């Protein structure tokens, strides 16, 4: 097989220039060691991050106007108004039944929102949309099953969802709640307070006698963004019902909610310096052939030029992928252990997601190496080629990771440039029911992992195609 022989020749060529093999080893070391620069940060946390029933970090803070309910029962209320200082779309006002008072406890709630209509949500992760215009809400408990309904007029009701809260005690706290997450503004957020006008709740079942008690829940949890200035939480009873002001959220926590937390994807920050090294090495493997006139020898030994290019690409991709994979597979578990040992909160990610980030990062390095080879073949001069590849891969990467870059620009960069491939490093989850700063700097990418990698591969295939045509057509 001439192909295997070409491959072997290119392999020998790669290994016999010490700087190239060494460069790839350095890239692997950079991935392995780079997280060290992120250490020494904030490890003291005021209080632990609440963990929800599914093991994920959550925001569990809201203004709660409650009584206790023993056994089965029902609560119905009209939400006559909901407004927040900054107009946050996910401001929430409605009814809630909670399994306990500890942060992260199970709950089921039905609510009117600032901009997303009526929803029924439970246990932080689960969200179901109801009517867009309903103003009446009802929660019904039967055992550990909770049913949420809504109505436009208080007479005709439609069910939104029925959910189970396993292990719900006989006596629970239930009542009205108001929450308001911080409003996303550019690359940051601003605390907001929502105020809701409730009618008088209609109760059925064994509710505790006496007055409604109002209090802010979770004011000291890390995810609580606080109130808008001059608008503290409050609860006022009037003849026709209650006025409740509150802040916080009942939702899965995001990077924006737990800024001191780390994501496993952060531990791959060394990909950035590694990428620079890989780009330089991969470009030089072809541009030095032109520089020293060696290309003549290469093409007279292998006159099928397309195959020569394919052999070079295969060797580069193989070497960078293998080195990258060794580095990531060691780095992630090692550093996760280390930073957890230091008491830093880490957003949980299942093993499959970590493996995808590890394999994906190695793949990104390999594909970028092939991209650099292709650009080097087209451009032929080391300096021009390295500059071109740095401008198209390393620079967008750098910009995308700058925390103060406007989010639309960061999203554009990670959607349409070759660095879209970094999406493989996302280990945190984007929730449709949570507005936050979903930027690459926070570990959120606009494309799904393999779609992002496909964008990078698309650029690489184009560049490789052009390189192949030019290599075949040009005099060497």
């Amino acid at each position: 097989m001439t192909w295997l022989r070409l491959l072997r020749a290119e392999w020998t060529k790669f290994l016999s220039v010490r700087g190239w093999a060494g460069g790839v080893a350095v890239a692997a070391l950079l991935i392995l060691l780079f997280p060290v620069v992120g250490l020494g940060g904030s490890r003291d946390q005021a209080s632990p991050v609440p963990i929800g029933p599914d093991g994920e970090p959550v925001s569990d803070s809201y203004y709660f106007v409650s009584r206790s309910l023993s056994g089965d029962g029902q609560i119905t209320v009209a939400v006559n108004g909901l407004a927040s200082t900054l107009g946050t779309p996910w401001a929430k006002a409605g009814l809630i039944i909670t399994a306990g008072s500890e942060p992260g406890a199970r709950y089921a709630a039905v609510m009117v929102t600032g901009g997303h209509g009526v929803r029924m949500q439970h246990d932080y992760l689960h969200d179901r949309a109801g009517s867009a215009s309903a103003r009446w809400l009802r929660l019904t408990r039967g055992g550990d099953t909770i049913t949420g309904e809504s109505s436009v007029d208080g007479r005709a009701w439609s069910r939104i969802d029925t959910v189970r809260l396993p292990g719900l005690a006989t006596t629970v706290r239930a009542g009205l709640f108001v929450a308001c997450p911080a409003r996303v503004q550019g690359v940051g957020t601003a605390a907001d307070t929502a105020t809701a006008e409730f009618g008088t709740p209609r109760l059925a079942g064994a509710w505790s006698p006496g007055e409604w008690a109002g209090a802010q829940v979770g004011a000291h949890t890390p995810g609580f963004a606080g109130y808008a200035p001059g608008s503290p939480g409050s609860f006022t009873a009037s003849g026709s019902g209650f006025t409740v002001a509150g802040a916080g959220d009942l939702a899965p926590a995001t990077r924006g909610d737990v800024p001191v937390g780390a994501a496993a994807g952060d531990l791959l920050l060394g990909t950035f310096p590694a990428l620079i090294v890989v780009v330089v090495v991969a470009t030089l493997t072809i541009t030095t052939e032109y520089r020293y006139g060696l290309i003549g020898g290469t093409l007279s030994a292998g006159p099928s030029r397309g195959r020569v290019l394919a052999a070079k690409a295969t060797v580069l991709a193989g070497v960078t992928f293998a080195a990258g994979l060794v580095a990531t597979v060691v780095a992630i578990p090692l550093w996760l252990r280390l930073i957890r040992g230091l008491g830093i909160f880490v957003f949980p990610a299942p093993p499959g997601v970590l493996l995808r980030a590890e394999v994906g990062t190695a793949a990104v390095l390999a594909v970028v190496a092939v991209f650099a080879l292709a650009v080097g073949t087209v451009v032929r001069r080391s300096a021009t080629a390295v500059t071109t590849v740095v401008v198209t891969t390393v620079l967008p990467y750098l910009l995308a990771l700058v925390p103060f870059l406007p989010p639309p620009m960061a999203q554009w960069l990670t959607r349409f440039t070759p660095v879209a491939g970094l999406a493989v490093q996302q280990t945190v989850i984007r929730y449709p029911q949570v507005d936050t700063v979903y930027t690459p700097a926070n570990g959120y990418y606009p494309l799904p992992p393999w779609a992002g990698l496909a964008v990078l591969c698309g650029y690489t295939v184009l560049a490789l195609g052009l390189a192949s045509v030019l290599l075949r057509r040009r005099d060497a």
Partner: protein
Amino acid sequence: MSDATIEVAGLRKRYGSTTALDGMTFAAVPGRVTGFIGPNGAGKSTTMRIILGLHTADAGQARVGGRPYRSLRYPLRSLGALLDASALHPARSGRNHLLWLAQSQGLGRRRVDEVIEQVGLTAAGRRAAGGYSLGMRQRLGIAAALLGDPPAIMLDEPFNGMDPEGIVWLRGFLRALAGQQRAVLVSSHLMSELQGMADHVVVVGRGRVIADSSVADLIAAASGDRVLVRTGASREAAAALVAAGAEVTRADQDLLGVRGMAAERIVAVLAAGRVPFSELAPHRATLEEAYLDLTGEAVEYRATTTEVAP
């Protein structure tokens, strides 16, 4: 080794407005060293690049053993070539340079060691090629050309940068290769490098062949019918010979070149005029002179000579 002939026919190549090759046609056949000679810019390297399939000709064909180079499966086993001895990655050792070439042709390490030994680079083989002298690079390039034990060998200016010892070695080496019935094509811009080694010369200028003949024929043609006459009385001798109808040029203080008159007649004329002379010999041109005769018109770049007053 009948499939060893290197032949080009009607090659044409333009680079922008420059015509590099203008109908280049010749063949280097097995069993002899063919000198490929011409001034710089005459198209020698371009021709060799086209033979190797590195450049594409605008017209014409180049074949090695009857086949286009690019159709060969393991081309280095058919034609070994040295185009540019400096075409090396400076960080790669000479041995590794040969190793990847060998692997691409399905050859092993043992063959690499053999050719390294053959060109006398065993000691330097493991050092980075960046530290090699030009002569060592030439030897490495020749080793690369020999790697596939090819029936045809093509070397572009292999004597450049070689020390006298290396030149003697290479001449003998190329003669030996031709003796093994290989076709050997060697380019040079200095005829003197090929004298005593080439059997056949292809002289080129401005992209086409000016002369394609055996070395003996070329020298005979250039020598003409000139007779050299050494005499202390050169003025009288010249006057007598011109009067007798000869064409006379002064070659030196005491040396005249006489054309258009046989040696016996010259003797008779000088004797009749009582002009003394000490030596009379037919002129035999050197290969260099023959070359200069031929390329005089074809040289593209030439230093402008300035007359300096005595």
